[in-house]
């Protein structure tokens, strides 16, 4: 493998990996703070992509403005879903999982019925190829990486420095104590759901120009994100980042080296992690004590 090719695969793995990171962090946030095992997460990703498409293509809005707008659309939708559905069954992991599955069924078929059967694509804002050390790197991939890193930094800032972030972490640690400290937990849950799902929506918008937009794009992505959770662990954002990158890299290099067998490679890696580090690389094994 030449170094040029290596760089190419690396950038490629980083790009898809970072997208997994975005979506998986949203999943971890929703799971950690709002205690919802969100099977509809992939559908929010799909809706983000469709919203970006609608703004960009139909209303002719600038790409960057439209991904930000569609992020807010998805966030609003997620918050509404939270208030209408999950608020009534909060704290019950199983009921929330079942309800989110119902939501997923509705969104997926709803998108097919209302947005039509035609699969969509967005023209890329970044065209051209960047030549670095002999490797031809598509600018759009580098843009995706940079955007995702920027968003993750923003998320870090939100969680670590702002009042909302502190409230979220407090709620994650101990809901009752947080409530005693005067934190409006309902609000925090709804906002966590909104932020988590809007991350998925953002990811949908960001990679819309790279890939295609279809009503059932959410399923495959959701399953990939669960693999990220297995690798990285369920507790920490850091786990999400590492897990996402590991999966992205494994697939990128795996496809090149092993072709179709790369899925098996991926699953063997996951199997090894399951056996030796059952809680994921950055998760703890919580035994009931």
């Amino acid at each position, binding site marked *: 493998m030449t170094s040029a*090719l290596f760089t*190419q*695969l690396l950038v*490629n*793995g980083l790009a*898809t990996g970072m997208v997994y990171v975005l979506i998986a962090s949203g999943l971890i946030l929703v799971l950690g703070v709002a205690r919802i095992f969100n099977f509809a997460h992939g559908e929010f990703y799909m809706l983000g992509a469709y919203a970006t498409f609608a703004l960009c293509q139909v209303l002719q809005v600038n790409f960057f403005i439209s991904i930000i707008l569609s992020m807010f659309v998805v966030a609003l939708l997620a918050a509404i879903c939270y208030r209408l559905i999950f608020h*009534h069954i909060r704290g019950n992991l199983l009921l929330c999982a079942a309800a989110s599955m119902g939501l997923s069924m509705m969104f*997926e*078929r709803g998108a*097919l019925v209302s947005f039509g*059967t*035609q*699969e*969509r*694509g*967005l*023209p890329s804002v970044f*065209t051209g*190829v960047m030549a670095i050390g002999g490797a*031809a790197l*598509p600018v759009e*991939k580098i843009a995706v990486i940079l955007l995702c890193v920027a968003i993750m930094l923003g998320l870090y800032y939100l969680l670590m420095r702002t009042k909302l972030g502190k409230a979220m972490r407090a709620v994650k640690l101990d809901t009752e104590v947080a409530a005693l400290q005067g934190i409006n937990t309902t609000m925090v849950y709804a906002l966590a759901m909104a932020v988590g799902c809007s991350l998925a929506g953002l990811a949908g918008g960001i990679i819309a120009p*790279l*890939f*295609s*937009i*279809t*009503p*059932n*794009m959410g*399923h*495959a992505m959701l399953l990939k994100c669960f693999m990220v959770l297995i690798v990285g662990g369920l507790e920490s954002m850091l786990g999400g980042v590492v897990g996402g990158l590991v999966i992205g890299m494994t*697939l*990128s*290099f*795996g*496809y*090149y080296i092993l*072709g*179709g067998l790369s*899925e098996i490679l991926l699953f063997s890696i996951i199997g090894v992690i399951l056996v030796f580090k059952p809680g994921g690389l950055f998760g703890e094994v919580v035994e009931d004590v």
Partner: protein
Amino acid sequence: MKRKKSIIFLGTISSLLILIIGIFAFLSRSIAQPPKEVKTLKVGSTLPLNLGMGVETKKMLEVIVPKFNEAGGLTVQGQRYTIDLILYDDKYSAEAGRAAVERLIYQDKVKFIICQIGSAPIVAGLATTESEKVMSFVGGASPKIVSPKNRYIFGTSTTRTSIPPLWTMAKRVFPSAKTVVFLSPDDETGRARASEETQVAEAFGVKVLQVLHYPRDTVDFSSIAAKAKSFNSDLIDYPGAVAGTQFGLQLKAMYAAGFRGGQISAITPQMDEITAVASHEALEGLLCTMQGTEVPDPYPLAHEVKQDYMKKYGKWSETSLTWIHGWFAFVQAIKKADSLDPEGVANLIATKGLEWGIPNGKAMLVKRPDLGNNRYCDTCAEMAYSQIKNGKLAFVGRIPLDEAVSACEKVFGGKWR
């Protein structure tokens, strides 16, 4: 807290109501079927309504069938029948597909099933259709459909026979090509097509360097494209690919990986979808199948269905044509046998063969001696080919039915007619 209780109360009542209404709807449908004075012939179909191709096929069938009924319907032994098409969702899954087929056969008492698409629901329904002697004219690419064990199912999709004519055309367009790499999805269709196409390519004197499988739901093709590029073959072929944007993503990735050789594909790309994801340069020169409606001077049938479709829905979609051959085959088979007895019709066309018209031209049932099936069970059709030039399909030429069948016979062996 009190408010919550009242919500629970209302909710319980409303969910119960919905349930009761649902049960009622079911019972009323199943029990109270009012007798009709006009004779109708029930024909069933199951389609994956969760996928674009299923919905498009449904839309097309809902255009053709009413038109056919208005034009007088079907006349069998002097008796006129209008067709009542009963269509269920099979969700592209074995379980839902089997339930739908059982419902069609036992509840709705259909004797003919047409235009199923997915291999999984078709294969899952096979046990029932065969034992109940229900005749099916189905799409679907699985070779299991044309297995010699089955007596009442006829594959009306050209997928299984489209490769030899394609390669006949490919040799004309890329005469100097010596090597090829296959990119195909890692599923039933992809694997079957890839092994078949390997056989065909070798028969045409082109060496297959590698078959690369990717998971069915892949969207990121960059690294697999880099791998495909590394063989530096003359041609890239995409056996078993799906016509939507995923195909466009593959072409885009191959272009980005630096591949500039010839590309061929047996599918009919949905141009507005693939141009939405891939640039014109990436598509340039792809040799692919062309729908009969798009060729320079289309057959009257093709012209007609396109006009009708446009009249009803406004926007034309080429996907809607791909899976409807079963309908035309069904009509022709009934006319030829002049009978509504599925067993009789099946025996007749399985031993005597069938020729019928589809929008793409002429089609006929063929035998598959290479698969051990000496009954007429599979479909060969006239094919039209095009190359993409500047983001548009440019007509290259037709392979008439005769030539298509001969090509198949030459590659796979045996006597097909």
